[in-house]
């Protein structure tokens, strides 16, 4: 990035910029986001308008919600790969139960599996000390299996996505997507939890040094249980929003977003080993990935080349970003 090109004789300035960027890790991310939007505007002039911005935000929000789950779990050094399943289950169940019940009841029913998955994850990781990667992978397998069985029982009744969710997922009011009504409070809550509550500080503490935290008298399993349940419920809510956006329930609705959600959190500066990161960075990371996807789509490359570029850019950005914020 710009600092690495600084000439030797300008070293003090270069170091000052670097110091500034490592103090405010959000700045380089925002610069990258603006750069991407500028490139997009250059490649296809006139594309960046109010409607495009609303659309981008609309598609970035589900990703940012899932990446929120990853950010929270990564703070403790964990990861939650079952978010895709929790979200898909919520989405599929709300669409099929929407036929029989009114919207609020269907939504409550749809969140039950997410709660169960989160509880199982929390017990496995917190009490039995199973590696989070394995535990969430296992519960995700079980969840998908249950959903397949469930699908057979409702195959005849058809599906109906509640009007409210469609309004929330796709609607735009005065240039602002309605999904912001859900996202802004959720994001504010997550940030509040991370920065201002004892629970949030415990997350950072566990990620930083789990042993020390336990020796200090923290009930490790309680924190982990609460964390994974929170993550899973958040994923369930994302599923409800996402079905409103996509409108077609399927058994692999949110799965393609799982790996990008990890990427978004990592690009946003959350360390996968725990102890460092913040949700603000993750939100910008999700925006960057969404703009990047648009950019690669309008380049009209074959699908294969697009995926290769996506992978390469994610790796490049992460490596560059780690250099910036770590070399003090």
């Amino acid at each position, binding site marked *: 990035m710009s600092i690495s090109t600084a000439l030797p004789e300008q070293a003090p300035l270069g170091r000052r910029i670097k110091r500034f960027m490592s103090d405010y890790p959000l700045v380089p991310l925002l610069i990258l986001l603006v750069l991407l939007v500028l490139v997009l505007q250059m490649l296809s002039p006139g594309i960046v308008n109010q409607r495009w911005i609303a659309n981008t935000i609309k598609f970035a929000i589900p990703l940012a919600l899932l990446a929120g789950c990853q950010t929270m779990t990564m703070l403790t050094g964990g990861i939650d790969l079952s978010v895709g399943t929790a979200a898909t289950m919520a989405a599929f169940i709300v669409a099929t139960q929407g036929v029989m019940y009114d919207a609020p009841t269907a939504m409550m029913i749809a969140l039950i599996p997410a709660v169960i998955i989160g509880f199982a994850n929390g017990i496995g990781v917190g009490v039995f*000390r199973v*590696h989070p990667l394995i535990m969430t992978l*296992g519960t995700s397998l079980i969840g998908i299996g249950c959903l*397949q069985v469930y699908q057979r029982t409702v195959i005849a009744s058809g599906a109906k996505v509640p009007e409210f969710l469609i309004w929330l997922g796709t609607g735009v009011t005065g240039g602002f997507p309605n999904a912001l009504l859900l996202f802004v409070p959720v994001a504010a809550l997550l940030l509040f939890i991370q920065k201002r509550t004892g629970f949030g500080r415990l997350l950072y503490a566990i990620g930083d040094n789990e042993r020390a935290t336990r020796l200090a008298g923290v009930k490790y399993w309680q924190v982990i249980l609460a964390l994974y349940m929170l993550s899973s419920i958040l994923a369930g809510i994302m599923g409800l929003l996402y079905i409103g956006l996509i409108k077609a329930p399927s058994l692999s609705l949110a799965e393609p977003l799982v790996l990008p959600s990890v990427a978004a959190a990592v690009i946003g500066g959350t360390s996968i080993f725990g102890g460092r990161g913040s949700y603000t960075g993750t939100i910008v990371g999700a925006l960057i990935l969404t703009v990047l996807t648009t950019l690669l789509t309008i380049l009209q490359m074959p699908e*294969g080349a697009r995926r290769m570029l996506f992978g390469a850019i994610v790796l490049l950005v992460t490596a560059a970003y780690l250099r910036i914020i770590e070399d003090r």
Partner: protein
Amino acid sequence: MMRLLRQQGWVVGLLALFVVLLITAKLIQPSYGAGDFGSLVRAVLPYAFAVAAQTVVVIAGGIDLSVAAMMALTSVTAAALMAGASEEFALLVVPFVLLMGFALGALNGALIVFSRVPDIVVTLATLFMLQGAALLVLNAPGGGSAEWLRNLIVGTVPIPVLPDAVTPWFPKALLLLVVLLCAVWIPLKRSRLGLSIYAIGSNQLAAFRSGVPVARTKILAYAFGGLFGAMGGLSLTMSTGIGAPIPGPYLMASVAAVVLGGVVLGGGKGGLLGPIIAVFVLRLARTILTLLAIDPNVTAIVEGTILVAVVMFGAFIAMRSRAR
């Protein structure tokens, strides 16, 4: 003997579980015999190589999320090269694809070492790249496979000293699997490099201070993972006769079998035998559920439950032994 049992307790337990499952299969379906065992081995083949790839990397303290994409890329490359080509040409294709897997694996390792980005993120990125490359090679399932390559895994191996009744229980696919895995794994494990791989997985800092070339070892561990991945890709082409650019369910299965096989995520412990038996157990469990005429969708639930239960059990034992 007792020492061996203690050291290999987990593997012996898995083997016993496998035998119990085999007997169960026989009880449920009296006609379950050598032919079914042969098809089980053929079905296991790509999984086994994926598991081997994951095992090497996990022992070195890493994790490879790109293993399924690596198999897809090597499989389509082999299928595209062999389509319409002569039988002899395939003799060149096989080493080329294996070399490609080795090189791409080494690239994975080099990216991890030089970018200083965590393994899980780098291999996540290479997952997208390899998947994209596979789509560029073939954008729909297609290609072909040489006849002799396909015949490698069909049929059984006649063993002269044993009676005819035993012969059908030795499918060629099993022989191929054992020979290939042993040919790579045994020399690797006995070499200085193998020791270094265990060392960096166990404690990277201690290994570095004892003079182990950490960067080189890590790159080579990923390269061997890539080599096993390429074998898995070739076995896919062998068994289907074509190459498909969309990765199969091998990533999840490989991680599951590695953990079931007693290799600790985080590195430094375990061997290759455990995970390979574990993958047989998982596949056989699936066959039994099919024999029981259980809804195939329930199979996924059972598999997930087995995975979670066994891992919890293992973690519980580890906790007990720590407490003592």
